[in-house]
């Protein structure tokens, strides 16, 4: 296989990280909504925690993005 082709395939494979980030972010917002609908008065206090969880889950997907960019443009 040519190195250029392997590079592109590798960058494509790195996009799988997005699946994990999607599951994570969906779980966090879904669980927040579930909790918020059961006890709306406590929802506002947990908004900060919601965003922290979102940021941490999103980061794993972004690592995949960074890997793809490294493969495409650095190597």
């Amino acid at each position, binding site marked *: 296989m040519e190195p250029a082709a392997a590079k592109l395939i590798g960058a494509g494979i790195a996009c799988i990280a997005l699946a994990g980030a999607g599951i994570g972010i969906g779980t966090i917002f879904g669980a927040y909504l579930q909790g918020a609908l059961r006890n709306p008065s406590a929802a506002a206090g947990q908004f*900060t925690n919601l*965003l922290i969880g979102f940021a*941490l889950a*999103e*980061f794993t997907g972004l690592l995949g993005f960074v890997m793809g960019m490294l493969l495409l443009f650095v190597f």
Partner: protein
Amino acid sequence: MGRTFEGNGLVDPLHQFNIERYGEFHLFGMDLSFTNSSFFALLAVALVVAFLAFGSRKRALVPGRMQSLTELFYEFVAQMVRSTMGQEGFRFFPLIFSLFAFVLTSNLLGMFPYFFTVTSHIAVTGALALMVISVVLIYGFSRHGLKFFKLFAPSGLPIPLYFVIVPIEIISFLARPFSLSIRLFANMMAGHALMKVFASFVIMLGGAGAFSVLAILPFLTNTAVVGLEFLIAFLQAYVFALLSCIYLSDVSGEHIGH
């Protein structure tokens, strides 16, 4: 990242991140030229200063329109600092406020067409993250001395668990500057590249003869993406400031017993 697709009609979505020098300036072998990145960073700072100075110039007891906007901005950050660090952590308010204002303004400035997004480069966000972590380390060590290392060993666990917890805590602490900087830069870069990719779909479909009617579809999608990008621009600035608050509050005392 100089990849041009000229010739086959494609738009290079990464061209917008190119750094252009406005004049050459070298000092001690380092390239300190004034670039479009430095220009837009200065523009962001100037806008924040102008906004705050203009909003607070009257200092009226009953605020006018501009002053309420400024007070809203101030109160928003003050609320975030108070809720995460308490009144005692309010000494870090100037740092957090400056970080939030700078990151938010740079993110929003990048939404203008042909404007450069300062925060889309890891050199910029990495410097910001290193600054935050330096403050965390200096504050932690000056406040607790060597007891700072208790941060890595939370009290009240069974002894065998410490062999697992301590390495995890150390790794998660070391990963903080990376996660802080990569999150901001990758979000900005990926979002802006996405907008350009959808915009290039419009151009490509527009030149496709009978199918050029379909160009409206990526155009509508791109409109929605621009809206999403405004949300992301705000959210990432908020997350950056919020995580800085939390890292500072980690070393401020409650988690490190005396």
